[in-house]
């Protein structure tokens, strides 16, 4: 059990932090305010392998271990959560299914382009009637000659506004007695692939989240990912992995808010002394620091399990649940510590507060995470 970061992890953290502070920090507030996606900075990130974190070297990826990948996601989110989201979703739930389920031909064709960012990926499961109840998707995929024809609407698709590739979950058999869903690799250039308006969100505003409309969208037959009926399996496996990414994001958001709160507490003077000298504030700082430390260990542990090849679904749910909670409480406290200034857009903490909330919702709400954990615990007990 290795608790201290090794030199490589330290250097990766320093490197990504340097990039984030230099390139993302100056624009983070503005892109949030205007809800714009900074294409030029994203281009720079592509060249630095941020879109191929765990893709094997043979496909042009950085082939990083899971802790290294988590550090990258954390450090970007520490400065600009919306861009962190882009990188996390791409790596965690768009690229990952290829690594696990794609055929050698699919890997050869798509992984290099995903790794160098030529294609940014999205994962589209959610629909208007299928959120936590992901089995209730209504998008259909009908085989016709050598193609599948997809029809349906996916909502709240992260990276939806700009993705060149989307993994679409669709019903391939909709007989209520034997529902079967499958996953399709859909390129944005296919006929019948349409993007909706960008969502107007509370936080993560610079991320191009949108709906995707499939209107008789023609998908080549060879773009079925896995086998027919693998939808549930691919979905659950992918989300287990995605949770690690969300936990890392949440950790980064919490870390950024925490640092801002501590800095402010040292500078802000009331009653002729810094507020950091007041016991109440010190209590807040102590709680935030402790929770961050615990959250980080939980995250790195699940990364270790994953790299060892051990099952990690329950631990991933714990990490996602806990890190997102810590993000929510830390950012709220950070705003509180900033007082009135924390409520103003002059300071960054209100953006962290808004960005944090969604980490408790997407890729499985906290309620679902609890369900997953409880099931895992109870399945070991005879009831």
């Amino acid at each position: 059990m290795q608790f201290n970061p090794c030199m490589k992890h330290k250097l990766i953290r320093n490197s990504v932090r340097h990039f984030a502070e230099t390139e993302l920090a100056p624009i983070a507030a503005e892109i949030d305010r205007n809800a714009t996606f900074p294409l030029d900075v994203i281009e720079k990130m592509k060249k630095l392998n941020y879109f191929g974190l765990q893709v094997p070297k043979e496909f042009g990826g950085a082939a990083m271990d899971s802790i290294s990948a988590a550090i990258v996601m954390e450090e970007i989110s520490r400065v600009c959560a919306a861009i962190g989201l882009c990188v996390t979703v791409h790596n965690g739930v768009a690229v990952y299914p290829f690594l696990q389920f794609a055929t050698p031909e699919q890997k050869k064709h798509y992984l290099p382009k995903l790794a160098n960012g030529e294609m940014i990926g999205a994962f589209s499961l959610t629909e208007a009637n299928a959120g936590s109840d992901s089995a209730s998707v209504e998008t259909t995929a009908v085989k016709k000659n050598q193609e599948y024809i997809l029809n349906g609407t996916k909502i709240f698709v992260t990276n939806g506004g700009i993705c060149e590739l989307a993994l679409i979950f669709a019903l391939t058999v909709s007989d209520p007695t034997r529902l079967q869903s499958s996953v399709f690799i859909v390129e944005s250039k296919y006929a019948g692939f349409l993007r909706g308006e960008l969502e107007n969100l509370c936080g993560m505003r610079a991320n191009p989240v949108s709906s995707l409309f499939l209107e008789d969208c023609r998908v080549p037959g060879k773009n079925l990912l896995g086998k027919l009926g693998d939808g549930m399996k691919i979905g659950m496996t992918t989300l287990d992995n995605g949770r690690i990414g969300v936990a890392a994001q949440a950790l980064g958001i919490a870390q950024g808010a925490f640092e801002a709160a501590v800095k402010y507490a040292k500078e802000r003077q009331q009653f002729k002394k810094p507020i950091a000298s007041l016991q109440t504030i010190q209590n807040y700082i102590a709680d935030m620091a402790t929770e961050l430390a615990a959250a980080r260990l939980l995250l790195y542990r699940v990364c270790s399990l994953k790299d060892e090849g051990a099952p990690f679904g329950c631990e991933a749910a714990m990490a996602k649940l806990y890190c997102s909670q810590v993000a929510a409480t830390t950012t709220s406290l950070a705003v509180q510590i900033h007082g009135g200034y924390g409520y103003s857009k002059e300071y960054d903490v209100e953006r962290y507060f808004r960005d944090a909330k969604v980490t408790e919702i997407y890729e499985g709400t906290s309620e679902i995470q609890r369900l997953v954990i409880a099931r895992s615990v109870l399945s070991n007990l005879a009831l």
Partner: protein
Amino acid sequence: MLNLVVCLKQVPMVTELPWDAKTGTLRRDLATGMMNPACKHALEATLQIKEKFSAKITAITMGPPVAEEILREALALGADRAILICDKLLAGSDTYATSLVLTAAIKKECPKFDLILCGAYTADSETAQVGPQLAEELDLPAAAYVERLEIKNRTLRVRRLVDNFRETLEMEFPALVTVSMENYRPRYTELMGLENAFDENDVIVLNAAALGINASLFKKQGSRTKVRKVFLRKAQKENVILQGTASAVVNEFLNQYQRKISAAIGKSIEGKKLNDEE
């Protein structure tokens, strides 16, 4: 194939200068380190040479074990191999001693170098002396504060601005340059590079004995200067606070400090006392 050597130094991050309040000295062991900014520029210049010509880069540093971090960073960016000179005996060396040690390592590990690049000065000691002293030890033609390098066969042409003179100089390999921060903005490190810097490449660690340096030799031939005392420069600021409308504070400021400002700018700002309306 050009044989390039780049000398690097790990310096404490100013963000984290941990002072020992009692002794007034810097707790270097507690400070987080970073690659000295000017060294980053020197490394960038080295990498750009490698991109243009076929070259092999050896990164070298003298420091405590943690200095290995900057060598890994150099490897991640494109250095081919790295040397860490690490020995307690060498701690506290001045530039005279440092250049002696670096010379021994270079003579041992890369004696057939074509060009040595150093940063113009370090963010901590700021002497800018190691480069020139290394050149002297190795008896090399050298130029400091170089902004641009051009190589044609075995001739090096450099451009620099020194004492308000724009100079273009030429010299033959082997040579040494120190690189200023005017140009050669350091590139970001690719994540792939960082991954590979730990798998594939090794850092050669040399101690003093490996360089043929023992304690008595070093005492005789090493540092010539000695630091007797070190202290924080504490500026006692009165910290006068002015508040109000822009017009009110500006007038108050100019009235109170007109002498100081006039002295600094060499012109009188006394203004027209009788009639302020223009």
